[in-house]
C-alpha cells in the first residue's frame, strides 16, 4: 500500500502529527486535569480533535491508508515526545484511524466532499467507542449514561473532525501551501461529482 506513496507525503503526515501533538500539548492541556474530576464523559465532546489529523491528511493526500497511517503516526509521535499514556495510544490511534479510513474506503477513495468527511469522523468515533467499551470496561456503566457518551462522541467526531477537518484544510488550501498534493491537483481537474 505504501509503495505508491511519495516520501514527501509520508513526511507531511509525520510533520502534521508533530504540529497537532504540539497543539494538543500546549493548547488543550487544561482539559486533562478537569476530566479527572468529571469522569470519562469530560473527554467526549472534544474527542473529535483526536480524529482530525486523519481526516486532514486523507483530504490532502487522497491515497488509501492516509487516515490509518496518519492517526497511528500521530500516536507514535505523541509517545515519542513523552506522552505518559504511552504505547496504548498507538493501539487506539490505529483503531481510530481504521474507523476514519472506512468511510473513504466505502466510497472507493473517489469522493472527498463534506459528507464523506463527516462520515469519516463518525466512523472514527464508532470504532474508538467500541475499543473503549472493551479496554476501559464501559460495560460497567448504565446504558443511558453510555448512550449519552456515545452520542456526544459521534457528534464530536462529525463536527470537530469532519467539518473542522474540512474547515482547516480548506483554509490551508487557500494559502497556496498545498501545491503538489492531490487536493490541489484535483482542483484543477474538472470535478468528478
Amino acid at each position: 500500500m505504501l509503495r505508491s506513496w511519495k516520501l514527501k507525503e509520508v513526511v507531511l503526515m509525520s510533520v502534521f502529527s508533530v504540529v497537532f501533538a504540539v497543539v494538543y500539548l500546549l493548547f488543550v492541556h487544561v482539559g486533562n486535569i478537569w476530566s479527572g474530576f468529571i469522569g470519562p464523559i469530560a473527554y467526549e465532546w472534544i474527542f473529535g480533535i483526536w480524529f482530525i489529523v486523519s481526516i486532514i491528511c486523507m483530504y490532502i493526500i487522497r491515497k488509501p491508508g492516509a487516515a490509518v497511517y496518519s492517526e497511528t503516526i500521530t500516536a507514535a509521535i505523541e509517545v515519542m515526545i513523552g506522552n505518559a499514556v504511552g504505547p496504548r495510544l498507538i493501539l487506539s490511534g490505529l483503531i481510530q484511524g481504521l474507523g476514519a479510513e472506512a468511510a473513504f474506503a466505502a466510497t472507493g477513495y473517489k469522493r472527498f466532499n463534506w459528507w464523506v468527511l463527516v462520515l469519516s469522523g463518525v466512523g472514527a468515533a464508532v470504532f474508538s467507542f467500541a475499543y473503549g467499551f472493551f479496554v476501559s470496561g464501559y460495560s460497567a456503566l448504565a446504558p443511558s449514561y453510555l448512550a449519552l457518551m456515545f452520542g456526544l462522541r459521534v457528534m464530536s467526531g462529525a463536527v470537530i473532525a469532519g467539518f473542522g477537518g474540512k474547515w482547516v484544510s480548506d483554509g490551508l488550501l487557500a494559502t497556496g501551501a498545498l501545491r503538489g498534493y492531490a487536493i490541489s491537483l484535483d482542483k484543477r481537474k474538472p470535478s468528478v461529482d
Partner: protein
Amino acid sequence: MVLNEQLHEMNPAIKFLVVVVSMLTLAWFFNPWTPAIFFVGIVLIQLVCSRINWKLWLLMMIPFVITAFGYLWTTILFAAEAGGTVIWSWKHIEVTDEQFARALSLSFRVIAFSSISLLFAFTTRPVNFVMSLMQQFRLSPKLAYGIMVGYQFLPVVKEEFVQIRHAHRLRGVGDEKWWWQRLFGMRRMLIPLLAAAVRKAERAAFAMEARAFTGEPRTEFFKPVTVRFNDWVLTALFLTLLISSSILGVLLT
C-alpha cells in the same frame, strides 16, 4: 550483566508487545484484585530492573490517579445493573457491593495501565523503539524514517508555535477568554503552522532522497537492534505476573 539495566536494555518492540498484550488481557477482568496485583508487580519489577527517577514517576502518576478517581465515582453513580447487596444508598441512588467492586476494578485498571505505560516510557529511547519496530516487526522504512524526521521537527515546531503566539499577541488575538473562542482561534494558529509544516516536510523528504533513501527495506544496519536471551526472560517474567494476577484476582473474589 547489571540487574537495574535490564528493562532499559530490553528490546523495545518486544517490550511494546508485552505492554499491549498485558492491557488487552487485563481488559477482561472486572475484579479489583487483578489490576491491583498487576500494578504492585509492575512497580516491583521496575524497582529491581530499572534505574528511573521515582520522583518524576510519582509526578507523572498524579494525573492518572485523578482520572482513576473520576472513573471510580462515575462508575458508582452511573453503574449498570449488576445485582448484589446494597451497601450504600442516598436518595434514589443505591450502590451494591458488586457495583462497587466493578468501579474499584475499573479505577485500578486505569492505575495498572498507567504503570505499565510509564514503565515503557521511562525505560525506552524513542529512536530505538522506532528502529526496533523496523528491524523486528518489518515496519516500512518509509514510515519509520518518516516518523523519525517528524520527531526531529518537534523543537522547530514548538519554536514556531511560540513565534506565532508572540506575533498574534501583537494583533490582540490568542488570549481569548472562552473555550469556544479558543477552539475557533485554533485555526488561526494551525494554518501558519501547517503551511510551514508542508514546506518543511518537502525539504526534509528531498534531503533524504538526495542521500539515496528510497524507502526499500534495508539490509545493513550500523547499530542493529537485537533480540537477546534476556528479552525472553523478561517477557516470561511479565507473562507470569499477568497470569498470576489474573488467577489470584479471580480466586480472591
